[in-house]
């Protein structure tokens, strides 16, 4: 389809300056698959997508079923978010082309038994299918899609200023573990407590989503998420600024859960984002593993941290990219838009 783009106005403080497009067709710039040591996190800010014609193009990428679902949604903002979430997934996956162009419209999805969306391939697609795993999360004001090349991944985001209707400690007593309730109760500042609650929620959601389960299949009271660094601080007053986040099952089978890696970010200045990926286990005899992440203004490159067990796991580096499909991308790793936060 031939398009004549008018000037697309994008807010200056978040993206590029004014652009004029005279594209003859919608074009998706290909992206290299994340290596086994990497995960990608793409995000989109719905408020920055204002072009009516662009939104129209987006609708044409969705399947009839998806368009029907979007049509059922009440409220323009919610409709827009639902549309953009599906567009982000389709276009992002299509960009990881290993063998020629993939039409985002051609991708098929299904849900697993617990409702987690997955890619579905026909038998004859084996040549061109990128081996990606993905997971999406969205609020009204941000949509995020995490991608790995083979590891299960779970992503969850929440707005930092989200208010909780119920009493936080009552809620935690009902749905979380005693250890987590204790940690929350120990926070006297109510705003800090609310933020810790949200971080904990996103981490727990990211975990059950990575497992492909969801809260119904894996109640939140069956596993505890905690900060190893916080415990170290409590015990001997020391500890770095990196929270090493771990998960253990309430019945004490820790070893089963040491293969999950968590990253907790403040994303776009407005949201908490939790990413959970399965680690790449490799028996090596070493007791250290290295971390590579953007730390806002303080990017320190590689940093060594003690392992959680005697296995040598290669942690995954997380690359954060902001995008508007068919318009452009901006790398956010190492900027204030993707800051690893304390837990």
């Amino acid at each position: 389809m031939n398009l004549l783009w008018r000037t697309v106005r994008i807010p200056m403080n978040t993206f590029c300056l004014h652009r004029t497009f005279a594209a003859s067709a919608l074009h998706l710039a290909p992206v290299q698959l994340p290596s086994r040591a990497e995960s990608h996190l793409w995000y989109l800010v719905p408020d920055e997508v204002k072009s009516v014609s662009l939104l129209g193009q987006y609708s044409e990428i969705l399947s009839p079923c998806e368009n029907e679902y979007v049509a059922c949604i009440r409220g323009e903002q919610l409709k827009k978010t639902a549309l953009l979430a599906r567009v982000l997934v389709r276009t992002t996956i299509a960009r990881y082309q290993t063998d020629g162009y993939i039409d985002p419209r051609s991708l098929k999805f299904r849900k697993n038994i617990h409702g987690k969306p997955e890619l579905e391939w026909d038998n004859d697609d084996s040549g061109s299918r990128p081996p990606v795993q993905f997971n999406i999360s969205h609020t009204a004001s941000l949509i995020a899609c995490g991608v790995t090349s083979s590891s299960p991944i779970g992503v969850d985001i929440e707005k930092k200023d989200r208010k909780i209707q119920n009493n936080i400690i009552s809620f935690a007593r009902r749905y979380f573990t005693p250890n987590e309730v204790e940690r929350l109760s120990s926070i006297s500042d109510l705003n800090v407590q609310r933020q810790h609650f949200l971080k904990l929620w996103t981490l727990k959601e990211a975990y059950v989503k990575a497992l492909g389960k969801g809260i119904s299949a894996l109640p939140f009271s069956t596993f505890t998420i905690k900060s190893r660094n916080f415990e170290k601080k409590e015990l001997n007053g020391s500890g770095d600024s990196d929270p090493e986040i771990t998960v253990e099952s309430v019945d004490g089978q820790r070893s089963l859960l040491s293969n999950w890696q968590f990253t907790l970010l403040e994303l776009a200045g407005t949201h908490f984002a939790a990413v959970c990926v399965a680690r790449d286990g490799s028996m090596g005899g070493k007791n250290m593993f290295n971390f590579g992440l953007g730390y806002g203004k303080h990017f320190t490159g590689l940093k060594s941290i003690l392992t959680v067990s005697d296995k040598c796991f290669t942690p995954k580096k997380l690359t954060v990219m902001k995008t508007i499909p068919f318009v452009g991308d901006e790398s956010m790793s190492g900027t204030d838009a993707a800051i690893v936060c304390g837990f």
Partner: protein
Amino acid sequence: MATFTVGAPICTKPTTCSLKQAQGPSRLSSLRLISLPINSKNFPSLRSSKMPPRLQVFCAAKAETVSKVCEIVKKQLALPDDSEVTGESKFAALGADSLDTVEIVMGLEEEFGISVEEESAQSILTVQDAADLIEKLIEKK
């Protein structure tokens, strides 16, 4: 949403109440009101007689339950009072994410004095699903 009490004059729309016993999940999303020109003079026997308790509870509770669920949902999702939320409304289509759904379930637990296992939460897709589950749990108590 009106319940009716036998023995009192009722001003209602002249529609008939659906007296069908529900088989399995009910799809009643609005209460049909009975118009009963009851006057203790003309129907003295009705003064002390009652409708079969099961039928009375059935007609009123379902709609009232749905109504309360709608109220809790609107509050959680900060929807205006006049927004259209009915038994058929899907939580996801109203903009509820997973945290909203759990908060709503917790609100329902407190409102109705029940306990909803997380495993059941997966089957709650609409307001009616929630109301039906509440009824089931109340009955079990």
